[in-house]
Structures are given as C-alpha cells and as structure tokens.
C-alpha cells in the first residue's frame, strides 16, 4: 500500500532521520508539526517573504567535515564550537580553560526547566522542524557571578548541496554572569542547502549577555533562524545581527522581558545585492516596569535585492515607565532594490516613552557632489556614504577582533572601508 502524504510539512520531513530517543521537547514538536503548514504570503508575519519554492525541495541530513581554519577569526581567542550541517563536531571544536563556562550537548538541557521557561512563547513551523529533527547543538552555561574568560564562537558551516542543518542551541547566562557569544554562519559548495537554526537562551538576574551574529552564507542557500531570549530582572541583553549572505534570510528574534530594570538592545545591519532577500522580524515583549529597550536596524540594498523589517514592541498593561526606542533606516542603491518596513508598537500601559521610525531613501546626491568636489571619485564617495550610514551599527560590535573580521569582509565583498 502506498502512503499518500497530503501534508506538505510531513512530506518535507519524511526523509529525515527519526531521532533515537524521543524526548519531551521532540515529541511536542513532532506532534505540533502534524497540524502545521508552511506559511504563505497570506499570513501577515510572512507577507513579504515567500518560502514556497524552498520548502518544495528535498533536503538531506548529512554529516560532513570542514576546513575550520577558513572560518576561525584571527585574534579572537575564543572557545570555538563547530557545527557542520547542523551536527556538532567536537573534534573540530576547541574549548579553552575557563571556569566560568560549561559546554554540553543540547540534549543535556533540563527539559522541565526549558518547558517552563518557554511556556506561552510562539513557535513556527521552522522552529518546530528544528526541535523535532535537530541533529545537534550545544547547551552553554555561564556560571553564576562569573565573567567568561573568552568569547564563545559558534561556527556553523554548510558543506554540500541540498543539505539541511538543524542545529539547536541554548545559552543559560546565570545570575550575575557576563559573556559574549559570537555565532557565524558560512557555506561551501552548498547550492540549495538550508540552515534552519534555533538559538535560545535565558539571561538571569543581573546577568549580561552579548550576542554577535554574522551570517555570510553563499547566495544560493536558505537561512532561517529562530531566536528566543528570556530576560530576568536587572539583566542586560545585546544582540547584533549582521547579514550579508544567503539567497533568502529570515531572522526571527524574540526577546521576552520578564523582570524590572532590564535593558534590551538589538541592532542589525543587512546588506543585500543581486536578488537576495533579507527579512528581519523582531519582537520585544515588555511585561514589567522600568525597562529600557533600544532597537536599530539599517539596510543597504543594491541590485534587485529585497529587505524586510518588521519590529514589534509590546508594552503590557502593568509595564509602566518603559522607554522603548526603535528605528529602521534603509538606503536603496539601485532602482530595482526594495524594502518593506513595518515598525509596530503595541502599548497597553499608560506611562511609557516609546518612539519608532522608519526611513527608506537613496544616497544624498548633494553629499556625493560635495565629496567629489574634494577630489573623491563617485565610487569612493558612495562607499564613504554607505560606510557612514551603516558604521554606527557596526560600532556596536565592541569585540575588536570580530570587528576587524567584519571590516575585512566588507572590504572584500563590497569594497567598503571603515
């Protein structure tokens, strides 16, 4: 008898390896998938991002090795955790001596604790596919009242064609800890492959966690990431998301602020060329009073590339004295590039200070002329202006070694000097 699958999601996952042990999280995700479909552009959250052609493809889960030297960042002096096609490769990873940091496999994460933490948060079909079929990942703990001696660099590499990489990670920043996680995403000979990553975490009271994410995959892959962070009182969370890669990118980032006196900062820079599609969806959910959040995303779109920004800030009824700032600015370098920008504020409290703004424009012709009149070529003038536009976002990356790496990337890929 032939089994007919009329559910596209079940068809999509039909060749994936069934996990050996069905944990609670996997089971919940598997169950939830049964009733799911892939989003179409009729779904508001996916209005500008069409995934249909990508999810019709078949992807395989295959382990591979990689030349890690290509992706290490000079002078970073970091714990280096390597994931190839979504599999954690311990042999390629280097964990330095650091009493503040423990790195375990994701399956070591306490499921009761995890379920409690994420209870009530939203999943989507991609995060569920990840959680049901994840092939590896890490559970990182930053110990209470300790400062990590080294940044933690998570290197993700796609190797080979038509591969799906379902890595799942969790970062627990314990009370009073301080740490920096750098997540980079790369690809090699991986046409039509798919990075479907989940990165979650918990920033406990008085802890400070910084995440720098740099995605530079080739322009022939699909990249969907789902990030969820929960902040406890008096914690600091900063995430910088820099995207230059992939054919289609969807960065989904949710931060749930579950305590007073928190500061949340999210910054993003996306630089599209050719026919790249870059979608940043963010949510900051303020549930308690006296918190501040700052969000700034900037896009520079060339060729026929498309940018999407949808940033939502919710201030719940009891969350008074919230100061939330949000900004999305875009520059179109060509007539055929476009951006859809949708800032959203949902405010239910009455004593708050919130601002949001969105701009889409071109380079200032007067400024180009001014620079040219000083002997600077038109091309250099544009480069200076673009660098000037995006520079303040890159300045949020305080790690000098990483910043140098980003500067080099921009110089090589776009000819932009900072």
């Amino acid at each position: 008898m032939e089994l007919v699958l009329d559910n596209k999601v079940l068809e999509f996952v039909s060749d994936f390896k069934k996990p050996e042990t069905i944990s609670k999280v996997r089971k919940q995700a598997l169950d939830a998938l049964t009733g799911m479909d892939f989003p179409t552009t009729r779904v508001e959250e996916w209005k500008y991002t069409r995934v249909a052609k990508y999810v019709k493809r078949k992807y395989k889960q295959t382990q591979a090795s990689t030349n890690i030297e290509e992706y290490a960042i000079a002078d970073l002096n970091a714990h280096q955790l390597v994931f190839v096609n979504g599999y954690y490769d311990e042999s390629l990873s280097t964990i330095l001596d650091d009493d503040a940091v423990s790195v375990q496999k994701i399956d070591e994460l306490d499921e009761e604790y995890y379920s409690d933490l994420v209870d009530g948060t939203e999943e989507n079909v991609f995060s569920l596919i990840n959680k049901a079929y994840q092939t590896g990942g890490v559970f990182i703990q930053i110990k209470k009242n300790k400062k990590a001696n080294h940044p933690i660099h998570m290197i993700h590499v796609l190797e080979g064609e038509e591969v799906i990489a379902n890595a799942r990670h969790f970062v627990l920043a314990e009370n009073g800890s301080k740490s920096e996680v750098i997540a980079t995403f790369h690809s090699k000979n991986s046409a039509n492959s798919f990075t479907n990553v989940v990165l979650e975490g918990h920033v406990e009271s008085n802890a400070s966690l910084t995440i720098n994410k740099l995605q530079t995959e080739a322009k022939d892959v699909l990249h969907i990431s789902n990030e969820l962070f929960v902040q406890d009182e008096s914690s600091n969370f900063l995430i910088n998301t820099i995207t230059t890669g992939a054919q289609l990118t969807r960065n989904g980032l949710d931060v749930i602020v579950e305590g007073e006196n928190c500061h949340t900062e999210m910054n993003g820079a996306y630089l599209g060329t050719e026919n790249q599609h870059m979608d940043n969806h963010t949510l900051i959910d303020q549930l308690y009073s006296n918190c501040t959040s700052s969000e700034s995303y900037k896009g520079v779109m060339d060729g026929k590339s498309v940018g999407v920004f949808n940033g939502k800030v919710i201030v719940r009824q009891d969350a008074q004295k919230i100061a939330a700032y949000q900004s999305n600015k875009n520059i179109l370098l060509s007539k055929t590039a476009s951006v859809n920008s949708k800032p959203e504020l949902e405010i239910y409290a009455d004593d708050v200070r919130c601002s949001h703004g969105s701009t889409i424009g071109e380079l200032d012709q007067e400024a180009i002329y001014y620079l040219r009149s000083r002997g600077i070529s038109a091309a250099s003038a544009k480069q200076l202006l673009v660098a000037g536009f995006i520079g303040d976002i890159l300045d949020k990356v305080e790690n000098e070694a990483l910043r140098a790496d980003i500067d080099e990337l921009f110089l090589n890929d776009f000819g932009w000097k900072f």
Partner: protein
Amino acid sequence: MLTIKNLHASVEEGHEILKGLNLGVKAGEVHAIMGPNGSGKSTLASVLAGKDGYEVTGGSVDFDGVDLLDLEAEDRAKEGLFLAFQYPVEIPGVSNINFLRTAINEIREYRKEDKMSAKDFLAKVKTASNLVELDSKLASRAVNVGFSGGEKKRNEIFQMAMLEPKLAILDETDSGLDIDALRIVSEGVNKLRSEGRSIILITHYQRLLEYIQPDFVHVLNDGKIIKTGTKELALELEEKGYDWINEEIAQ
C-alpha cells in the same frame, strides 16, 4: 591660470543663466565677483566646479592648459580647483579626517605622487585647523554635522588648506558670518594666498573685501561681467548699489 571665454550655461530646464561670460585670472591674483541676486554668481561657481544639473551651451574654460569643462567634478579638484560651498553639506557618519584622507590620497594617486604618511597627514591637519581656529574635535567629527554656520565656513577653509588648490572659488563664504568669524575666515584665506594660488571671491557684500583685498572686482549682472575695476569699485557698489552701472552702460 583660468581663462573663461564667452561662457553660456543653462539649468537643465533650459533657462539660460550665464550669457557670454568672460574672465581671466592669472596665478596669484584675487578676483572678487559681485552682483545682485540672480545674476549668476553661484551658477558660475557650480559650472566651474562641475555640479550636475547645468548644461554648458557655449564657450570654453581653460584651466592651466586643461579643458575644465571636459572633466568630472572630482578630476577638476584633482587638477587643483577648489570650491568653498555657500551651503556646506552635512554628511552624517563620515568623519572630516577620514574623507580628507581619502581625498588627498586620491588626488596624489591622480598626480602620480606617493601617498601621504599618517604622520605628515596629522601634522597637516593640525596646521590647517589652527589656521582657521577650528577645534581639533571638529576636525574628527562627521562632516559639518552639528556645526554652527560659522564652523561650517571655517571647515571649508580648513579643507582648502588641506587640499592646497591652485584655484579656490569661495562662494559667499562670508554670508552668515558674524564679525569674529569673518575675521578668522578672512585671515585664514589671507594666509593661504601665494604666488601660485589664485582666488575667486563670490560675494554680495563689500565687507569681505576689507579683510581680503582683491586685485580686481567684477560686476556680474544677467549672466555677464558688465564692469571690472579695482577694490574701489566694491566701495562704490556698496554705496550706490548696482543700478548706476546699468545706467552707465545704457548711456
């Protein structure tokens, strides 16, 4: 240095603004061009500097043996032309220093000279900013962003000192300056006068010419130079306005 012959120029919509302008500037000379609003002063500056949006419909401009009108704006600067803007543009995110370093390096490359060393560059920044009493903090801030009107004009002369042009056109550099700022800017310009450097001052007002003494004063009206004299002409203009010249010509 500069020979303008029978220059005709229109804005792109077709309206003719310069209607047969002639002007000769020799090395080391300072020429003032005065004239009422709408006479074509700023158009002349824009056409010489190579701003888009103007069409040259006749005439020629020779700049030290080079056909100026044939060059892109950046190449005119590389040949040694400098325009101090009437309205300097604010450029967020681009530092003064950074853009001047880029400019100097590109100019040197064009002239097949070696790059300027970081040490020499910084020394030059110091000298040039002292020249116009520009706060060293402003030198490293984003171009003109948050500068007062006077600081913007001082920044123009600072850039002139950095780029050391053969010919500088100062387009209403005195407008909007208080007496102190006018003195500082003028003294800066005077220190930059040299045998090999020519200056064209475009201005409405005679008061600038008390500080920067011109060799010649030209009156521009309706796209043509209608009278040329010495600095005394400027005083006469200040006193009597422009109409008497037209009457004189009519007679």
